[in-house]
């Protein structure tokens, strides 16, 4: 059973719609759902003023239209599935702990901030602060997975403590800034100042990158753990090839201004082991 919500009136200013989770809509009729309160700018409004609602409530919600001005979709989500046929706005899946969100288009800033579980899949590009801690917060993403099939903006995984962020394209500056733990895999290029202030955790890239002077080169080796991680990502649809799975990686340790227990792994030699 699925609920189909189609945007019929684009909001003039951002619409905060954190009511859009399977648990919140569970058991509601289309009429009841249409009367749910959302915040339009600084005014309260009803969901039905913007969306046409069809179907029967269940564990899956389909949202159709240009949702770039719809914020907080799936925020606090605990289970079920949301599919966005189009692009999504800011704070997608904020603080979610379970379930899955799939966005067929792009997503705005703050995808999955401070999430603790579940999975977010962005088929297009994502904005800044993917899986990050909110400003003033100390800990970002604490579990779950975020997969971006395009590129992502700055500060991917800022303050992240646990979980996985995988970017098929490039990531912006300060990828993994203040990383506490967890894993960030970027198949494309990293921006500047990767891993600044990271304590623990892993940042992987398949392209050469500028490394901060507070990181030290340890060795070149073939990490067994990537033979597990990368095929897993390939199974989720990311374009990982065998050379990346079996390749030789530079290991850089840092950040020395912090605990110095983090690592940046950069693919150096994609030839298979002899």
């Amino acid at each position: 059973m699925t609920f189909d919500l189609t945007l019929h009136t684009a909001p003039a200013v951002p619409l905060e719609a954190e009511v859009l989770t399977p648990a919140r809509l569970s058991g509601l009729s289309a009429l009841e759902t249409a009367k749910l309160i959302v915040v339009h700018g600084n005014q309260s409004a009803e969901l039905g003023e913007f969306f046409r609602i069809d179907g029967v409530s269940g564990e899956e919600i389909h949202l159709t239209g240009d949702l770039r001005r719809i914020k907080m979709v799936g925020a606090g989500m605990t289970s079920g599935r949301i599919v966005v046929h189009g692009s999504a706005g800011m704070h997608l899946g904020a603080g979610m702990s379970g379930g899955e969100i799939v966005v067929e288009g792009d997503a705005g800033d703050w995808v999955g901030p401070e999430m603790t579980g579940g999975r977010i899949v962005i088929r297009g590009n994502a904005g800044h602060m993917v899986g990050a801690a909110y400003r003033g917060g100390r800990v970002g993403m604490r579990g779950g997975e975020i997969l971006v099939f395009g590129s992502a903006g700055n500060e991917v995984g800022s303050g992240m403590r646990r979980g996985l962020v995988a970017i098929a394209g490039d990531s912006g500056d300060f990828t993994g800034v203040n990383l506490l733990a967890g894993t960030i895999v970027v198949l494309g290029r990293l921006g500047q100042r990767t891993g600044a202030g990271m304590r623990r955790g892993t940042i992987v890239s398949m392209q050469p990158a500028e490394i901060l002077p507070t990181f030290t080169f340890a060795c070149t080796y073939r990490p067994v753990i990537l033979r597990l991680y990368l095929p897993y990502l390939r199974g989720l649809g990311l374009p990982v090839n065998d050379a990346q799975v079996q390749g030789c990686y530079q290991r850089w340790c840092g950040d020395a201004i912090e605990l110095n227990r983090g690592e940046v792994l950069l693919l150096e030699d994609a030839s298979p082991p002899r």
Partner: protein
Amino acid sequence: MTSPELRLNGTAVVDTFAEAFAMWGARVIITAETPDWARAAAQSMTGFATSIIGCKCEAGIEAELPAGDTPDGRPGVSVLLFSTSAEGVGKRLVERVGQCVMTCPSTACFNGLAAEETVVVGGQLRYFGDRFQMSKLIAGRRLWRVPVMDGEFVVDERFGIQPAVGGGNILILGRDQAATLRAAEAAIGAMRGTPGAIFPFPGGVVRSGSKPKSRYSFLFASTNEAYCPTLRTVAAESQLPEGVGCVLEIVIDGLDLEAVETAMRRGMHAAAAAGALQISAGNYGGGLGQYHIAPRPLLEPAGAAT
């Protein structure tokens, strides 16, 4: 002594049963850069693990695995380890993975059993990393990366364990040592590769079959004189028919009863084809083991498919 009536390729099959025991088992997948190094670790891990009587566990190599069948895509070996309690399996795994697998160049070690009950293995071995270790969670599975001198030792935090069957067996009786060895080698050759089963003794074959208790008060197991050819006229109840000059036993531990029965069936057919005079099974009167596995039903048409 029961009279042999069923014959398999001319070999008499005694109407008796193998007495097997409830145990706990685990499957360990060892991988390495080459099959040789994976095998080296597996052989080390399964060394001195012939009998629970003296080794605290029984272990053996279940199969060699091609690279495509292992978690990290490298060549590997599947090892089964059994002990009498869940706690015992956990302790033995920590000891043996720590001393025999982590120490072996290029290896990694993974749980190979999807089971409800688990024991902590990598979660103990991680301390060897002296706070330089790292953990990774992949699809709900926690792995530990322990820094070692050739890179990292990757090991699953937890290993699945399940109730299992230990001590299934067949006895192969032959004319002399050479003929009986031929039959035993044929049998173990046919039994190897049975999914979920291992044969913990050297080469899969044991010559020192035991009975419980001893004439010495400090021993709880001793030689099974009923099958010793040198004691044919001395033992109170010799089980050796005329013409038998040697007996060899194959002990089977399995993750379930079906694995043990399948291995026994394959072994009996092969031993008979290789010229064994008689096939029997070892038991202790039926009072000790939870499983009584009679060889004959395994060979009858309904149970004959392998």
